[in-house]
């Protein structure tokens, strides 16, 4: 079904000039339709970004609280009482609240910051701009996607203030712990709200994902075949497909958990004696939940990571002034990673008690993922080789991402090996691994994206020097926080421990834990530099030129400012791939996608000269179509 507006819009593209007038009409929306219930993908992208930043501050602050406990176990925390109230008992964090903190930190960071804040922001913002579309396929669904996310955030936020605390069973919320309020107080109302919130979040993800996929398939501008798409779009496209296939399974897992909690079913519960009584549940399996959860949970890792890799590919290529090395290999490796991500989930469950033969299969499949991941790393490195590198803040964050992707990815080879995982499972080694490869790498992708596309988003530049300081504090800080955790993990320290005093084996590393906590506090504090830079530059930053990074992609040809419809005139036509940087023979070191081969005879490769003829035929064809419509 096409709405009247969409039809008008389509006609606007055919009748030259009509569109600008139409776009002008759109601009007269009031405050509510422009900033709140906006259907413009650019505004929705910004809404996701600002909300993501809000959640990143909360998620980060929660981690500082439990890092205080881990690094300074004897510290008197009475000064936190005004904020935390009864969660401070005798100057100490409450033990159940500690578990709630790690649970909320994980949930918020994985879903609200790195899924919605990263994918939501850049898929929304960049897809129409980089494929030359007026907007998303359905602006209305897109708006719903944001508001479902917002509602999900409100529910989760409320859960933070419950008497019984928010969910506390770890971000994976394994039943029976998460199903039984007798087992932990967070599994009462807190867990109910967690499930409601996640259900809303899944709806949001699906609405967004369907839109991204449809838009990329249907609304690419003239000439923009799939083989000319920027890697960012490829990444968002593949991510959306992964999300569409895996989030419904999480929904199923959550739904069955809701049934078990509230309606007395036994999907996950069996043979349980708790609180002085034997529960009536028989025949359920906690392992079933783990299978369902990780069927989303593992692809989720790539939902978080692939957009960051896409953003990085674009930024590294632009700032190396070189084409991305192995464009096709980059796409193929993303497709391979996406495919494999669906058949490796049980490597999170090697010691769950599932059949060990299943463990063998999943180990085999898991380690295969290292091959396409390796290809990506080598391609990034080769892109830098013989480049002419400009270290913008975005470029530095992208290089940081590559570094984290390597160091965190390599430790995956330990954990994916089931025999080694017996010892390392659920220790701090795992914490170090995923915080580097998924947490920090994706977070750096997010920051790189913000620094790179800020001029497009807000029409002004961010301050570079603050960006550099921010980068260095964060880059060094992240390594100082997460690298030491490997040692602590090899020593066997279990994660999600309130304190290590109960065990003789875990008496060491008090000093290292303190060091990690201090590094975490500094890294967290450094993010406020970014926040200042971000909000200050929105209003007071230097005015941005049309194409500040000398980039090839389409968004830099779009109108400056927030024109609903992106291009006030015709949509641009694409003639070439997005990576014609430093092409031999060319005067300039970049040739935007909109420049036809006929205008660059000096730099065309032999096969491209053949295309020149096609281009002129195309133009004639196009004009005849226009004439026909007019008739």
């Amino acid at each position, binding site marked *: 079904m096409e709405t009247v507006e969409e039809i008008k819009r389509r006609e606007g593209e055919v009748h030259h000039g009509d569109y600008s007038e139409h776009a002008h009409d759109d601009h007269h929306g009031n405050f509510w339709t422009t900033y709140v219930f906006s259907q413009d993908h650019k505004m929705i992208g910004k809404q996701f970004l600002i909300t993501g930043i809000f959640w990143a501050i909360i998620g980060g602050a929660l981690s500082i609280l439990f890092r205080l406990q881990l690094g300074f176990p004897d510290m008197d925390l009475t000064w936190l009482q005004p904020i935390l109230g009864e969660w401070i008992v005798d100057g100490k964090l409450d033990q159940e609240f500690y578990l709630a903190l790690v649970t909320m930190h994980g949930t918020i960071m994985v879903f609200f910051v790195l899924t919605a804040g990263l994918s939501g922001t850049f898929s929304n913002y960049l897809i129409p701009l980089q494929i030359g579309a007026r907007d998303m396929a359905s602006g209305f669904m897109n708006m719903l996607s944001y508001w479902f996310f917002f509602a999900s955030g409100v529910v989760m936020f409320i859960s933070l203030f419950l008497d019984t605390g928010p969910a506390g069973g770890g971000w994976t919320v394994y039943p*029976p712990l998460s199903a039984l309020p007798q087992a932990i107080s967070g599994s009462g109302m807190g867990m109910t709200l967690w499930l409601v919130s996640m259900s809303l979040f899944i709806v949001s993800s699906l609405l967004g994902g369907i839109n991204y996929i449809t838009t990329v398939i249907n609304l690419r501008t003239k000439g923009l075949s799939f083989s000319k798409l920027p890697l960012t779009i490829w990444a968002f496209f593949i991510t959306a497909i992964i999300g569409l296939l895996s989030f419904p399974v999480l929904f199923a897992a959550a739904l069955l958990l809701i049934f078990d909690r509230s309606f007395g079913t036994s999907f996950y519960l069996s*043979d349980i004696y708790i609180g002085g009584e034997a529960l009536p549940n028989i025949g359920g399996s906690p392992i079933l939940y783990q299978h369902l959860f990780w069927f989303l949970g593992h692809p989720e890792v790539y939902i978080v990571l692939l957009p960051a890799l896409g953003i990085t590919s674009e930024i590294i290529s632009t700032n190396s002034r070189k084409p991305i090395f192995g464009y096709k290999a980059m796409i193929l490796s993303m497709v391979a990673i996406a495919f494999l991500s669906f058949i490796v989930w049980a490597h999170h469950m090697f010691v769950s008690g599932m059949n060990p033969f299943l463990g063998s299969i999943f180990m085999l499949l898991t*380690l295969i993922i290292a091959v396409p991941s390796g290809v990506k790393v080598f391609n990034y490195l080769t892109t830098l080789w013989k480049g002419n590198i400009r270290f913008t803040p975005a470029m530095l964050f992208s290089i940081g991402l590559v570094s984290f992707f390597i160091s965190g990815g390599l430790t995956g080879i330990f954990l994916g090996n089931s025999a080694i995982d017996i010892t390392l499972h659920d220790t701090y080694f795992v914490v170090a691994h995923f915080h580097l490869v998924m947490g920090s790498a994706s977070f750096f992708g997010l920051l790189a994206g913000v620094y790179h596309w800020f001029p497009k988003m807000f029409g002004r530049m961010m301050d570079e020097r603050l960006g550099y300081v921010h980068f260095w504090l964060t880059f060094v800080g992240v390594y100082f926080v997460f690298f030491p955790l490997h040692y602590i993990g090899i020593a066997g320290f279990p994660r999600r421990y309130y*304190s290590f005093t109960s065990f003789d084996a875990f008496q060491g590393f008090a000093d290292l834990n303190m060091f990690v906590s201090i590094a975490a506090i500094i890294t967290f504090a450094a993010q406020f530099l970014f926040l200042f830079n971000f909000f200050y530059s929105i209003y007071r930053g230097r005015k941005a030129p049309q194409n500040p990074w000398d980039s090839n992609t389409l968004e830099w040809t779009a109108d400056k400012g927030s024109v609903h419809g992106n291009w006030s005139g015709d949509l641009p036509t694409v003639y070439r791939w997005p990576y014609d940087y430093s092409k031999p023979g060319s005067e300039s070191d970049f040739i935007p996608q909109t420049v036809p081969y006929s205008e660059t005879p000096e730099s065309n490769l032999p096969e491209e000269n053949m295309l020149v003829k096609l281009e002129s035929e195309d133009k004639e064809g196009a004009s005849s179509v226009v004439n026909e419509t007019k008739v």
Partner: protein
Amino acid sequence: MFDSLIILSGILIIAILFTLFRVGTLVNVVRNRDKKPVTGSNKVNATLLALFVIGGLALFFYYSSAYYDEYTLPLASEHGIHTDRLFWWTMGVTVAAFVITHIVLIAFAYKYRYAETQKATFFPDNTKLEVIWTIIPAIVLATLIFSGLATWTDITGPAPDDAEVIEVYGFQFGWKSRYPGNDGELGGFDFRKIDAVNDMGIDFSDEAALDDFVPIEMHVPKGKAVELKIRAKDVIHSVFIPHFRAQMNAVPGMPTRFWFTATKTTEEMRAELDNPEFNYELVCNKICGKAHFAMRYVIVVDEPEDYEKWKAEQTAWLKNNPDYLSKLPSELKELAMLKSGISE
């Protein structure tokens, strides 16, 4: 008073930083620096990147060798020899990859930093290169995978027939263990039989259960395979014994198992570490609630003969709880008295 001073100085510092930032921005505008594609900071960043990676690698190697004894746990099981070897092989491979890629990263970043006179090389692809770096990691990984598979299959395979079978039972928040008694066979269990006395839910309608004993401390023999039969009472727990490189979840409703052979007695380990206080510890390693961090259970490894002696000294659960006899089916009572050793 003191608080307000801190707040005031905080505000002052922020104000000073902000002023510096404004001055810097204005100077840049005056010098027209913003118009160039790159500034002097390009070289600074390239250099810092190189210094950070070199310094970081140095720190990494220093710490890893200087603190080796602190972050590695002494090993006390047979299969652990294989998993540890796999671990260090993998470490060798990954550290090599880590160092090489990072050196390459900073070398390229530093060498090819922006220069006005320089033009980047148009190098969009090279099939040969890409095939090479797909195949080499694939071969290395295949090696790791197959040695891992073999080890995993051995560890998770069936325990030897003569293995000591011991039940380990996790609950909020602690552990218990149960031994088969003289008949060498663990009795059944049923969570509906749990009550204040029979807190493991031992099913005494099963004859094999009558002589089972539940000791205070868990003992295992050195040099003999031990098969743990693992259960949980309420939520998921995880049996993690770091020194044995052993780990398996305890799942309500789904008994699990893990077998291993201890190689050093507690006494031997105490001597080796020169720590008379040393004990093998069983650690809960799956989030299970408030006191998750305190679910400790001591495991004593004995010489085989000491172990047999210790076993002989234990008394059956029923003998310790003779009142429970009244709950047994009447036809079993006589047998129970006999097997549990209540009547000699």
